[in-house]
């Protein structure tokens, strides 16, 4: 909101210049005293002591009521009271002049002057009253009437321009903007050459901007009239700057351009307007930065006064009384302005303050904080409201950046001084949200702040958002019922319509989030029915359609079509078209779905949903085996969205189709093209990984190198080179990307292929990886990954060596990929370095903490790491062997099973659980777990071998010696590459065989074969 910071220029004139100036000495002794009193009062006024001056004038009137000087004394008393701020006394004094029916002709101008002063005094009186004081409105309306009276009576007066300006100002303060603008435009037309007419131009600019701002704050659709008003306002202000006549006014105009653009930029919402908004804010920053300092403005104003004084003197010398009077009045007005300028704070400080607001709006939190802190520290913020605002923004900036300690310190400082202040209606929301962020992740703390916000601002604008945010935190804590209950309680308290519609709508949102989709649909239907005409009605309509599209696609179609028919221009139209296409596709209406998706892409190309519609079309076409059309759609997508983040998905989709058509080289060309065109795109790591894998597959498809013919050998080698090049490029250019681990694994496969083709020795393979690791000496994380890959190669053959390599690569201060650390942890466990293994897993736990959130809501990478931690620690504790640790380990496995059942680590858990079950003599359950491992295609050889060993031990314990021996011995046959387990199997198998050989274990009795059942009996059964 734009605020006129200028105190209205007083219509002041020097009555003395209009009065007869007979010599005081000619009036006898009494005249001498009154003349002396006049001089005394004038001296007091000149010294700025207006109250005393007024008292002397009034004393003079009292003592010499019959003197001809009395009307002037009354006028001067009124003016002195006015300057002293005693408006009622001023009005009374001016009234005496106005009511004087016997004014001599030479003093007639006093009547006009007093009439001009009355509305001015009324306006000034109003300006001092609080904005909500009814007396203010009365005074302003009275002022407008008095200005009209004056202007009607003296339309040609020299003061008409000033009176019109002041009338417009009063109308502005009464928020009668159209009337004010009318008066100002007429004034500018009537007095284009006046040296003060730019005051009217300035006020017109402010009025236009205020009107535009008011209109846009209520607008639900674009408002070209408001935009025009902003344009005209900016043009008028820039005109003042360009004409360069009055530095004080130029400075105000600069400041107001900043205000106007700040307000205007605030109305530019949505992605489409982001750039426009940034440009507008930058222009606002330029305007604020151009505001001149107080010293410069004051100096310029003094120069302006001197200029008019000079003209006044020249007019005096030329005995041109009207011109002299004109400049005298101007000097007075400008002198009063000077006093105002000297009395107000440096406008550059205010401009800096506003700059901070723009920084905050632009999400430049550091800049916001530095600026406000500097202003506060230098004492530049004098105004209490500004101090409050600065503290508010500093607190908000800390909270927005999740700098908890500082945010809370500032929050508490704010609360201690300004608790419940309307400016901070959203403060609890932002501080609470800080605790919901990934960094702090403390929903309970968040709820505390949300509750405080709800308590402090029960009717605040953020109430609905606070209720929803609290519900979100409650959902995170799995307190679904509390969230629903809170919303239902809010509704039960018969809230205002605005609150009720928000609460009911949020209830639907909570139900969606808790998976109660059917209930949510009913809730949204209730909102739609009960609150017609609200934005929530439209949003609910949209939600119903979108939810039903997942729940019951056929039923969704009429709902979605209904929305499109009722809100053809609605914000959700693209999302609705997306849902409609999906529902049509799911209902077997593939052609209709294709048409809907195409409509979405064509009519709403800039919508969030549009890019996805291409993929939906491609999926439908692929399902119908229309591969050429599918490829065409993906090509169209790439052309229409050359900067889309989904471009890789399109390339990937295309390449996959080509691969499925046996066009491997074309698929490779697609990825090559992506890499060439977007070398820095994060998805390029994916593209390189695909190239790495495709070329590896190409090599393998040539057959066994040793037996294939020469031409194929060349292709075999080409595949090796290309695959290696893609992997090396990936690791070099995206060393921190998660794709590095897979690339290294593929690279190892490719090296091993060369080893099996006798093109490389094992030593050369090791050298290759060591050299590769050396390339990343400045990236210890990547280097460690390379060395861990090499160690994993040695892991099965030589765990001691692998462990040494890993120990050398491991650096506790580095954050490793969870799977890499897991490998190290496993090696330590295998090397019986259990305590060290536990430390490794505890570090992993610290590197990927849950931070108070529930395991199932934590980010996926944290969940995966936590699954590894639980499996690793569980295994390490079980390996320790004592019952307490074993039990602890078992509990960890149970936790893993409960929280991360999808994790590949579950296979290890099955093994660990089987171990625990065996200890508990629950053999049948243990066997079931082992069978899960043996069946799982993803189980490692080591895990299978261990499973088999455990199964053999269980059989042995149960006296099933033949089965036990069979399993013990076969481990070395099936899993010879797991030496430790295979050797143990052979040893234990040998021991059982020896016990049988010695007779300790008796020879098994053959199980009798069941007697043949007579055919007749079988039939009977």
């Amino acid at each position: 909101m734009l605020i006129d910071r200028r105190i209205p220029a007083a219509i002041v004139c020097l009555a003395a210049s209009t009065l007869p100036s007979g010599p005081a000495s000619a009036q006898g002794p009494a005249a001498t005293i009154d003349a002396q009193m006049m001089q005394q009062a004038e001296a007091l006024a000149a010294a700025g002591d207006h109250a005393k001056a007024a008292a002397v004038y009034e004393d003079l009137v009292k003592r010499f009521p019959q003197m001809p000087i009395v009307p002037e004394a009354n006028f001067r008393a009124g003016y002195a009271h006015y300057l002293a701020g005693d408006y009622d006394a001023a009005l009374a004094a001016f009234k005496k002049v106005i009511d004087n029916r016997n004014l001599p002709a030479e003093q007639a101008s006093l009547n006009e002057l007093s009439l001009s002063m009355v509305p001015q005094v009324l306006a000034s009186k109003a300006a001092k009253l609080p904005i909500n004081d009814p007396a203010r409105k009365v005074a302003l309306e009275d002022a407008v009437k008095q200005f009209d009276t004056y202007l009607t009576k003296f339309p040609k007066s020299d003061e008409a321009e000033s009176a019109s300006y002041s009338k417009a100002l009063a109308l502005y303060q009464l928020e009668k903007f159209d009337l004010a603008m009318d008066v100002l435009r007429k004034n500018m037309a009537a007095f284009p050459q006046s040296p003060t007419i730019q005051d009217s131009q300035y006020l017109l600019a402010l009025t236009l901007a205020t009107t535009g701002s008011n209109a846009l704050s209520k607008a639900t659709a674009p408002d070209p009239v408001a935009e025009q008003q902003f344009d005209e306002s900016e043009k008028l202000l820039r005109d003042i700057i360009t004409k360069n006549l009055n530095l004080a006014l130029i400075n105000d105009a600069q400041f107001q351009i900043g205000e106007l653009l700040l307000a205007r930029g605030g109305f530019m919402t949505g992605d489409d307007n982001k750039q426009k908004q940034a440009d507008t804010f930058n222009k606002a920053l330029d305007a604020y930065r151009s505001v001149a300092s107080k010293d410069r403005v004051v100096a310029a104003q003094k120069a302006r006064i001197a200029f008019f004084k000079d003209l006044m003197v020249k007019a005096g010398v030329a005995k041109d009384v009207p011109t002299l009077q004109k400049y005298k009045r101007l000097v007075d007005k400008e002198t009063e302005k000077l006093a105002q300028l000297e009395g107000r704070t440096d406008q550059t400080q205010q401009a800096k303050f506003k700059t901070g607001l723009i920084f905050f709006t632009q999400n430049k939190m550091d800049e916001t904080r530095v600026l406000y802190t500097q202003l506060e520290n230098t004492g530049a913020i004098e105004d209490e409201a500004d101090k409050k605002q600065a503290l508010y923004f500093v607190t908000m900036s800390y909270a927005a950046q999740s700098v908890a300690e500082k945010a809370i310190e500032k929050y508490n400082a704010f609360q201690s001084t300004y608790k419940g202040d309307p400016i901070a209606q959203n403060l609890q929301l932002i501080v609470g949200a800080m605790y919901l962020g990934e960094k702090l992740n403390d929903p309970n703390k968040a709820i505390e702040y949300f509750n405080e916000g709800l308590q402090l601002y029960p009717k605040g604008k953020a109430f609905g958002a606070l209720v929803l945010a609290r519900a979100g935190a409650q959902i995170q804590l799995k307190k679904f019922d509390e969230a629903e209950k809170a919303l239902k309680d809010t509704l039960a308290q018969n809230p205002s319509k605005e609150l009720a519609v928000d609460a009911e709508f949020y209830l639907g949102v909570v139900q969606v989030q808790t998976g109660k989709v059917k209930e949510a649909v009913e809730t949204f239907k209730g909102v739609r029915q009960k609150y017609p005409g609200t934005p929530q009605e439209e949003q609910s309509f949209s939600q119903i359609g979108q939810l039903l599209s997942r729940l019951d696609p056929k039923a969704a179609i009429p709902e979605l079509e209904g929305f499109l028919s009722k809100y053809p221009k609605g914000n959700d139209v693209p999302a609705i078209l997306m849902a409609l296409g999906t529902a049509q596709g799911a209902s077997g209406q593939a052609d209709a779905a294709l048409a809907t998706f195409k409509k979405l892409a064509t009519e709403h190309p800039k919508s969030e949903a549009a890019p996805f519609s291409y993929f939906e079309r491609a999926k439908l076409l692929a399902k119908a085996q229309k591969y050429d059309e599918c490829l065409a759609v993906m090509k169209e997508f790439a052309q229409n969205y050359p900067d889309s983040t989904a471009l890789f998905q399109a390339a990937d989709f295309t390449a996959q189709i080509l691969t499925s058509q046996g066009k491997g080289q074309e698929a490779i060309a697609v990825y090559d093209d992506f890499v060439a065109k977007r070398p820095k795109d994060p998805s390029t790591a994916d593209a390189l990984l695909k190239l790495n894998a495709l070329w590896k597959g190409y090599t393998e498809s040539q057959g066994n190198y040793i037996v294939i013919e020469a031409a194929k050998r060349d292709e075999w080698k080409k595949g090796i080179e290309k695959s290696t090049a893609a992997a090396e490029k990936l690791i070099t250019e995206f060393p921190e990307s998660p794709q590095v681990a897979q690339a290294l694994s593929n690279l190892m496969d490719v090296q091993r292929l060369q080893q099996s083709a006798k093109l490389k020795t094992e030593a050369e393979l090791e050298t290759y990886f060591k050299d590769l690791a050396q390339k990343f000496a400045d990236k210890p994380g990547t280097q460690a990954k390379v060395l861990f890959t090499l160690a994993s190669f040695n892991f099965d053959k030589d765990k001691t060596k692998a462990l040494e390599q890993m120990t050398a690569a491991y650096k506790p201060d580095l954050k490793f990929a969870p799977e890499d650390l897991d490998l190290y942890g496993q090696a330590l466990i295998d090397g019986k370095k259990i305590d060290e293994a536990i430390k490794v897993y505890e570090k992993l736990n610290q590197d990927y903490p849950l931070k108070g959130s529930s395991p199932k809501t934590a980010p996926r990478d944290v969940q995966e790491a936590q699954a590894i931690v639980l499996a690793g620690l569980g295994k390490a504790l079980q390996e320790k062997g004592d019952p307490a640790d074993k039990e602890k380990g078992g509990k960890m496995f149970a936790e893993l099973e409960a929280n991360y059942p999808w994790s590949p680590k579950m296979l290890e858990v099955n093994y660990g659980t089987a171990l625990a079950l065996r200890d508990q003599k629950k053999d049948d359950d243990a066997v079931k777990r082992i069978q899960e491992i043996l069946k799982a295609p993803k189980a490692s050889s080591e895990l299978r071998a261990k499973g088999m060993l455990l199964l053999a031990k269980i059989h042995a314990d149960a006296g099933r010696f033949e089965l036990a021996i069979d399993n013990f011995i076969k481990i070395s046959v099936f899993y010879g590459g797991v030496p430790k387990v295979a050797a143990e199997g052979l040893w234990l198998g040998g021991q059982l065989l020896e016990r049988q050989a010695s007779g300790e274990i008796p020879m098994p009795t053959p199980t009798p074969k069941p007697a043949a059942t007579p055919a007749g009996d079988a039939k009977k059964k």
Partner: protein
Amino acid sequence: MIRTIAFIVLAAALSFGAAGCKKKKTVAEMQAEKVTVFRQKQKVEAIKSYTALVTKYPDSEFAAKAQERLNVLGPLPAATPAPKK
């Protein structure tokens, strides 16, 4: 050729005759024999198992123990020579 056939027939007749002249074993004797054969067979399997362990996994913590057992159990019995044709 005729001589060869005659030799085979004679040998078969002799073996039948010899068997027919032996004392019939009791069930207990037969069982004891089975146990002996079983134990012998398991001993051979144990030796095979230990030998595989020592050969394939000489660095294993079980290799030394296996070697000790092999020393106790002795070498594998010589294989029965196949009849000459």
